């Protein structure tokens, strides 16, 4: 399957297309001659400029979903377009909540499998994808067999976003298929968790805490250190599950992927599912009292010590520098 046309599932927030959307558009540009996007929301047209700048010649607009969860209506629209004879060779989907829903539904509608957890792509006539396994110690290369578009669900931060200087995308309305019962889920209210400082997945410094902190109140040390370093505070899943911090702080396979200049892991063991979310950081500092903790295998600087001693001392030292 030579790669000619790629579609990108574009997620658009109030402030514009999300970073992962721009990353996927950029990568689509390098593998295919024609790049088109699919988007939904009340105001897609006003982002046609950005989508075009990053490579989309055209954007199919599913429109305002009026509170419906995107999975069924967006997959339905894509399936109609494909069945109308307009199939791309591949569809790039961001590995987000809604992206995964769309991919799963579309997979059934097109009777095509999905390749998920993709972190890299390669073209050699055909398109193949790379997937980290066993906590990133190994890379699996996979590809689709048979006819029809390949659906790739790609993790954030797999590619760098760069504008290509294209003109504004042409906005074309997407079909609105009848969804029957599948479209029945409705968002009735939205809750936004306020957090101060830079966003976790955009911060240059991330300081994360884990179960080694011992108690929820000690997470304040993580927040204070993150603040002093103008960074964001993150967490392992163990303490998210324990209810110490909201889910939006979670780093790892089921949380955010981060690639900061420096990642500080305090009281985190370094389970494979945590490592896949932060291994790409430029520098890693780990503090753990167990010298055999797997986190040390990826650390540039590892301190075998007690977080309750090292963190307060570190905070003091940074404060005294002013």
């Amino acid at each position, binding site marked *: 399957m030579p790669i000619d046309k790629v579609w990108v599932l574009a997620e658009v927030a109030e402030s514009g297309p999300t970073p992962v959307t721009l990353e996927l558009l950029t990568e689509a540009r390098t593998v295919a001659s024609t790049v088109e996007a699919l988007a939904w929301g009340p105001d897609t047209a006003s982002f046609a400029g950005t989508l075009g700048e990053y490579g989309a010649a055209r954007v199919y607009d599913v429109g305002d979903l009026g509170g419906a*969860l995107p*999975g*069924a209506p967006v997959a339905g629209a894509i399936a109609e377009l494909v069945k109308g004879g307009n199939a791309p060779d591949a569809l790039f989907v961001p590995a987000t*909540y809604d992206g*995964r*829903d769309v*991919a*799963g*539904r579309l*997979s*059934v*509608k097109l009777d*095509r*499998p*999905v390749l*998920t*957890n993709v972190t890299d792509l390669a073209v050699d006539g055909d398109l193949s994808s790379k997937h980290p396994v*066993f906590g*990133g*110690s190994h*890379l*699996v*290369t*996979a*590809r*689709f*067999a048979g006819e029809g578009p390949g659906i790739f*669900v790609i993790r954030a931060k797999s590619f760098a976003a760069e504008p290509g200087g294209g003109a504004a995308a042409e906005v074309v309305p997407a079909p609105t298929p009848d969804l029957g019962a599948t479209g*029945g*889920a*409705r*968002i*009735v*209210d*939205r*809750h*936004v*968790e306020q957090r101060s400082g830079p966003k976790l997945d955009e911060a240059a*410094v991330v300081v994360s805490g884990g179960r080694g902190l011992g108690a929820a109140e000690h997470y304040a040390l993580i927040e204070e250190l993150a603040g002093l370093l103008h960074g964001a505070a993150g967490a392992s*899943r163990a303490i998210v*599950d*324990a209810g110490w911090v909201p*889910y*939006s702080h979670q780093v790892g396979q*089921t949380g955010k992927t981060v690639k900061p200049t420096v990642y500080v892991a305090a009281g985190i063991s370094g389970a494979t599912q945590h490592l896949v979310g932060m291994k790409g950081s*430029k520098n890693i500092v780990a*503090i753990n009292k167990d010298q055999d903790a797997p986190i040390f*295998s990826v*650390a*540039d*600087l*590892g*301190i*075998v*010590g007690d977080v309750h001693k090292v963190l307060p*001392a*570190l905070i*003091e*030292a940074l404060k005294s*520098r002013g």
Partner: protein
Amino acid sequence: MNVVVCVKQIPDPAAPASLDPTTHTLDRSGKLILDDSDSYGVEMALQLAANVEGSEVTVVSMAPNSETSGLRTALAMGAAKAILVSDGALAGTDALGTAKVLAAAIRRAEPDLVIAATESTDGYTGTVPVQVAELLGLPSVTFAKAVATDGSSVKVERQTEAGYDDVECSLPAVVTVTAGVVEPRYPSFKGIMAAKSKPVDTLSLADLGIDPSEVGFTGARQEITDVSAAESRSAGEIVVDEGDGAQRIVAFLEQIKVV
């Protein structure tokens, strides 16, 4: 209310995992256990069923062998019965094939509510439950961190990038739960004993009317072409804190110009 929970039985994640050198699929030949991710689903189902009169929890699993130990764990926790789809032809089945098999088995249980985990520990494709929903023609609410039901609809707090959304959906529906939503109970001794006599309905592909060519290695329309060791990070400096740990970190941060 009929609550069906998808439970995957997986190789013990604590044991080192290995890929079959020829098929590049995960070696599942050893003993399988209940995926931890699904223990949250089982617990959620039991709690929801307890609040709606006349409810029953059925667990459904697909496996290439006749393994039931994971199902027994779920039965010991309190599920009433189990359906196991087991067929030699299932080895190597991809996520879509798995979803087709599970959907066919779930349909038999006439579910009002289907619960699964957002992703399995060993495969973590995270697509099977939504594929099942689409195959069954049902709505789905994924990434639930809280679920409530009165037997006719569900109210879900669904995780989002920014926080969470309140989502409502009438039943029947598929809901996927994240870990940590509830605290899975430990099976009691009584529960373990009772589980031994609970029904496990074992079905073959023929029972479900599924052609073996649609599943397994032959049905999978994706293939692994290579497995290689990833570039590993060069080993860093590991030092024992002698009271100077914080200073070392400061020095390191200076060196990389973060402070």
